[in-house]
Structures are given as C-alpha cells and as structure tokens.
C-alpha cells in the first residue's frame, strides 16, 4: 500500500529519513532500504542535507524504489532555480517517484561550501504552488503545456516550536492552500508545545486538509545530544529531556534515546489529528526496529498491516 493510500485509509503511517552517501554509489541507500522495508511505509531521501554535498536526492530515491521501499524525494529551494526545480519534478515523476517533500533548505553557511551562491529563487510556499500547478493544470509556471503532466503527492515541513509561535499554524495553512497534502515536522522533543500547536491547527481545521506526521528523533550519544541542542537550526531540546538523557551512563544514551522516542510516539498518537510519525534517524537507521518494537501502538499497527 502506498504512503498516499495508507494516509487516505486513515491508518497510522510511519516514515523515516535517510541521507544518501557522500560518494558515487547507491549501495548504502539500497542496504538501508532493505533494513527499513518491513518497518516503514516510505523513506525520505534528503537533498544535500545541512548544505553538504551528497548523492542527488532523485538518485537516492530511485535506489530506494528499486530496493522495494517507497521514497519521499526531498526538494529544497537552496540550490536550484525555478527552471531546474520544475525539471526535477518531471524527472522524478517519470521515474516513478511520487512523493515530493518541499522545504526551504538550510543556508549554505552551515555546510561544506559556505562560499556558495544561495539560490532561493522560489520559497517553499511558492515551490509547492508551482508543483501543484504543473500537476493540476498540466503546464509550467508560465503556461507551456506538459505532456503528460507529472503525478505527485506533495508534502511540506513545519517547525511547530520555532517563533513566531502564533503564526506557525497559519503558515501551515498557507502551505496547504499552496498545495501541501501532508506535512512532516521538525524534531518534536517538547510534546506539550506540539500539542499546543495542534490545538491551533485543529482550530483552523487544517488536520482535515492535510496529513500531519510529527518528527521523532532518537538521540544516540551525548555528543549528538549537545550537537542537536546547540548547533542544529530550529531544534529545541527542553531541559527535562536533556537532563534525562544525560542522567544515564554514556554507554546507555542510545538505549535511553530509543526509549524516549518510543514514548514520544505513544504520546503523539494520542493527539487528535496526528496521522503518523516521521522518524528522524538519518545515520542511525538501525535504531528503527528497536524504537518501533518498544512503542506500545506498534503491535496494533503491525497486525493491521499484515492482515493479522
């Protein structure tokens, strides 16, 4: 069952993020896809994540598809102008890549080429709008017909905990108006803050217009915890979460991080309007089976999938 169909059927969806290798081989993607195939509905393939050069998102997506795992191709506005972005959608659709996740992208300053020209010809809302136009109107932005038009399931991202908090649900509404059909969020470590955002989302009726998959991460080491708290733009690690992960011996941080992720999934599932979860485990994909196995809801989800 495709991600789109699973979400439409109303059953709990699980996606995970992987990052393609820094190198000219798709083998690592194929290996990760084989590991995750029985656990997640689709896998996000990042687009030069953190502004660091990696294998192209479309190539990684194609490798996942060939390995039997549905890809979600991530597309940022940082590196390509509107001509290249439209061209990429056509290529992806032609190759069978249906799910596209649109985001602004990190600034080049944070990556391995800080001297690069930031493109940002379109912003994420405008890119969603452009891609939907191509699909629904069968034409490029300036009107030339596309034969055949692309088929795609469009996703957006949101960061519920970033300021201005009062505007974050409205911003999702803007993305939905522009074409977003599902949304995956930044790491949710602060479930109470996320629940607060979801209240605004429900007040605007957005959970009925878009499938919402909050991001859940598994912290695997003390270094990763500090890096996430201090260095990753837009990630907020509340003090109680930080203390909990620091309280265990260093060699047990990964286990505690996985436990925390499983608990978070459980808490998120109880929030009205949540359609599934997005596991932010790039580089730590082997943690997925452990996390899902210890989430209480997983037994039910798994039984439903395999027809009991």
């Amino acid at each position, binding site marked *: 069952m495709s991600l789109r169909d699973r979400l439409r059927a109303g059953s709990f969806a699980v996606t995970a993020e992987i990052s393609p290798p820094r190198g000219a081989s798709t083998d690592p993607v194929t290996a990760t896809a084989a590991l995750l195939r029985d656990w997640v509905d689709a896998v996000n393939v990042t687009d030069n994540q953190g502004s660091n050069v990696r294998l192209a998102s479309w190539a990684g997506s194609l490798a996942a598809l060939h390995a039997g795992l549905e890809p979600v191709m991530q597309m940022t*506005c*940082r590196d390509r102008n509107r001509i290249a972005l439209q061209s990429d959608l056509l290529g992806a659709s032609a190759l069978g890549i249906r799910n596209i996740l649109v985001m602004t992208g*990190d*600034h080049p300053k944070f990556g391995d080429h800080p001297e690069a020209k930031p493109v940002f010809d379109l*912003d994420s809302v405008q890119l969603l709008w452009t891609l939907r136009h191509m699909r629904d109107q069968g034409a490029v932005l300036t009107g030339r017909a596309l034969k055949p038009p692309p088929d795609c399931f469009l996703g957006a991202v949101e960061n519920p905990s970033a300021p201005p908090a009062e*505007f974050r649900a409205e911003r999702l509404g803007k993305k939905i108006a522009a074409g977003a059909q599902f949304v995956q969020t930044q790491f949710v470590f602060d479930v109470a803050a996320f629940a607060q955002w979801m209240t605004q989302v429900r007040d605007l009726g957005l959970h009925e217009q878009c499938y919402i998959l909050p991001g859940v991460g598994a912290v695997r080491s003390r270094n990763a915890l500090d890096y996430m708290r201090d260095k990753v733009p*837009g990630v*907020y690690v509340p003090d109680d979460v930080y203390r909990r992960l620091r309280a265990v011996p260093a060699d047990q941080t990964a286990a505690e991080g996985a436990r925390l992720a499983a608990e978070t999934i459980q808490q998120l599932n109880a929030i009205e309007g949540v359609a599934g979860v997005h596991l932010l485990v790039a580089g730590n994909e082997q943690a997925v089976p452990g996390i899902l196995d210890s989430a209480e809801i997983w037994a039910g989800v798994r039984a439903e999938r395999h027809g009991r």
Partner: protein
Amino acid sequence: MTTRPPIPAHPRLGTRLAYRLQRVLRPRAGLRWLSARIEASGLVRPLFTSTERLTKDTLFGCRMCGQCALPVTGYVCPMGCPKELRNGPCGGVGADGGCEVYPERRCVWVEAFERAASQGRAADLRLLHLPIDHRRWGESSWLNYWQGRDEDLWAREAGDTGDAGDTGDTGGDRHAPHHQPALGGS
C-alpha cells in the same frame, strides 16, 4: 543595481506611522497621473528612483527588488531575509527570535508578525506571495505601485492562490497574476 547580500534590517519607521502613510499614499488618480509623468521623463525618473532607493534603504534596508511587499509585511522587508522568503519564516528561527544565519539579528518574519499584529494586521501575513520577477530589480516600486503593476504580487485573500476561479469573483481579474497557478484538488 545593488549587489548587497540580504541581511535582516530593523525598520526605522514606526509601525503606526507606516500604516498611516500607506493610507495617504494609496494609488489614486493624482498619484497615477504624477507617476506617469515621472516615468515619461528620462531625467526625473532616475532621480526619483535614486531618492526612493536612499529613503527605503535608510528606513527598511531596501535592496530594490522593485516588487515591494512592505504594505503586507508590517513594513519589515522580507528581502532582508538571507533566504529572501516572501511567505513567512523558515524553520530555523532561534528560540529567541534570532535569524538562523545572523543570530544577533531578529528574524524579519518574527518582527513582521509583531508589527503587523500590533496594528491588527496579522491576517496580512496569511496572503500568498507569488514568485518575483527578477528582471525588475532596480526598478522603482513606488512607480510600479502607483501605476497598478504591483497588484498581482500577492493573492487577494488568505487561502486564495491568485486563481480567478478560486473565489468565483470574476471581477477580480486585475489582481490575478499573469502566471497564475490554480487551486486544484487531487
């Protein structure tokens, strides 16, 4: 033409005064006539454009994109955002409201939201902005505004995507962009 990279700028014009000026300077017959005369003059037009550049650079850190969004962004320039985002903030805003790229400066969208909300104009931020036309950098947006060429920069209403078929309002075509993506279900 400016080649200065985008850097968030704190506006030096008070919010209330900015909205008051907006009412005074709204396009009307007199201003339309005057702007047409300025445009027609090979001497006055560049002088006028330079004056606009100086004024708006001082007040808003303007980079002369020629397609001014200030009337619906609380008079905080979105082209000062290092990602030049015209539809709201990215996900990298710091917990203190700082810009991801220049943490010592405030995110232009955090400031835009605060300023617009302080005057009851927070709903402005829900309007969808179309992709800009990069051929228009360096043009006077005041002349464009008074001549009615700026009317398709953003959608009429929140949730509207600028498509004439969205609202059933057939009289609203003048707002519709020339390259309008349309609302469509799937």
